[in-house]
């Protein structure tokens, strides 16, 4: 529907005018990528994973920046709630479903920009993959972001603009660390925990280069369960959120 597209266009324009997101989603991951991956560019199998350091950290920091982009979407929701905008929107014919999808869409556009930026950075450090691998890797990252998009919406409806900054930062840092953004998670117990987190599978998207499907059944199940659970919580939070803030 062209009306919905118009609405989405303005929502996107707003998102890209918010400079704070640029730092967390673009500048920060990019700087860290060069800081971590450049000194290790000769490492061909980081932590025994069989994956070269520039690829590993490219996907790791893409995951980090993209997680910031989609969870950070919640900060905008919280700010909108604080000025009563969600109540204003309830007085329009805009369906809840559309509101959600437009939020998810803008979060994903932001994430795609992060992905493109980090891929380009990867190329400068000598990352070369087959076209099919780039595409499959991107697809896996986009799918793996779904639970984080839901977490962003959930946070946005539970928190105030003051509390959400640290919550987003802390959550992303937690998932990034245990998911293996900064270094491969190998040790036994730690690995078991990591495998149950969706961020682990985000980072595992780099396995496409090894010829496998990338995730395997376990990865798909973990991502699916997190997505459904977080989406249900997000929906509940939105529905309970009719009150004035």
């Amino acid at each position, binding site marked *: 529907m062209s*009306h*919905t597209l*118009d*609405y989405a266009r*303005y*929502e996107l*324009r*707003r*998102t890209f*005018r*918010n400079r704070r997101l640029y730092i967390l989603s673009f500048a920060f991951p990019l700087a860290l990528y060069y800081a971590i991956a450049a000194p290790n560019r000769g490492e061909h199998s980081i932590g025994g994973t069989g994956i070269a350091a520039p690829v590993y950290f490219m996907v790791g920091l893409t995951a980090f920046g993209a997680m910031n982009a989609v969870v950070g979407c919640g900060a905008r929701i919280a*700010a*909108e709630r*604080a*000025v*009563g*905008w969600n*109540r*204003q929107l*309830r*007085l*329009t*014919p*805009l369906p809840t479903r559309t509101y959600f999808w437009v939020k998810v869409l803008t979060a994903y556009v932001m994430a795609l920009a992060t992905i493109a930026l980090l891929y380009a950075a990867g190329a400068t450090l000598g990352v070369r993959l087959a076209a099919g691998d780039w595409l499959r890797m991107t697809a896996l990252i986009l799918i793996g972001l779904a639970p984080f998009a839901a977490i962003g919406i959930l946070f946005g409806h539970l928190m105030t603009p003051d509390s959400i900054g640290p919550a987003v930062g802390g959550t992303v840092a937690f998932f990034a660390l245990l998911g293996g953004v900064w270094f491969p998670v190998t040790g036994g117990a730690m690995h078991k925990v990591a495998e149950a987190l969706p961020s682990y599978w985000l980072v595992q998207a780099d396995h496409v280069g090894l010829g496998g499907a990338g995730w395997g059944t376990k990865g798909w199940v973990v991502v699916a369960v997190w997505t459904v659970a977080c989406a249900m919580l997000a929906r509940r939070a939105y529905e309970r959120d*009719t009150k*004035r803030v």
Partner: protein
Amino acid sequence: MADVDAGRSNGDGITLRGLRKTYRSPGGPVEAVRDVNAHVEVGELVALLGPNGAGKSTTVDMLLGLQEPDDGTVDVFGGPPQRAVVAGRIGAMLQGGGVLRDLTVRELLAMMAAVYPAPLDVDETLQLARLDELADRRTERLSGGESQRLRFAVALVSDPDLLVLDEPTVGMDVESRHAFWTTVRELSEAGKTFLFATHYLEEADEYADRVLLMAHGRIVADGPPHEVKAIVGARTIRATLPGVPAERLAGLPGVTRAERRGDTVVLACSDSDAALRALLSTQPLAHDIEVRGAGLEEAFLQLTGVEEEVAA
């Protein structure tokens, strides 16, 4: 003939029947709204007055479908409020609301227009709210009064049949306020229905066709502004009189209610002549005495005060 389309039918205006709403609070249940009944005709300009905690905002929320009543029904143009909302027939300025940032005034209006079935032209909306010159300014750079005008524009952009305005002129300067009411008047004459809540009692007095006065979750008076004033009758005496408790003055003949404001006492009177005689004879120190016809404010104080005694 005009009302063939059910979506655009006016039904019987707006009717609130037996509305009740109770909130849970740490101190026990709070009855915010208890048995509100009211009817607003199509094209009427009605003021909803009441002190904080009177239940105005809860009533407005239920009227708009933002909250479900515990009991009672809301009928907007012959259906539930949600139906009118989906048809784009309700525009609202909610209390304490702000506007979306990171867009210009024009962009925000265009964004909102995009979600409605038959919106007004954005330029026309800008003119109605006197925002033409601010069209390209970012919303976060507007002053308080300017964002109020933008919120009015947001309420107008769907070309609604009913406008619900909660404290619409807060933050506006005298000139904007005057311009605002001129526009409201014009739209009202063009057939739009208005319900506005305000603390500026002189605005209700001056602009409303009818006043609904709320206190303690009920409507305690409903009529044209002059009738609401007539209900509480008469006049108010103000005098400078330090040190005498208001309760003692409330007992004077002809006085229905006494209130102290610093060194000044305000006596709401059913018989101001008797009250004045009694005041002068019992309180020789009273000076700077003024006797005035009750403004809506006094009517308001008196009615809500009476209700307090009933409730206590």
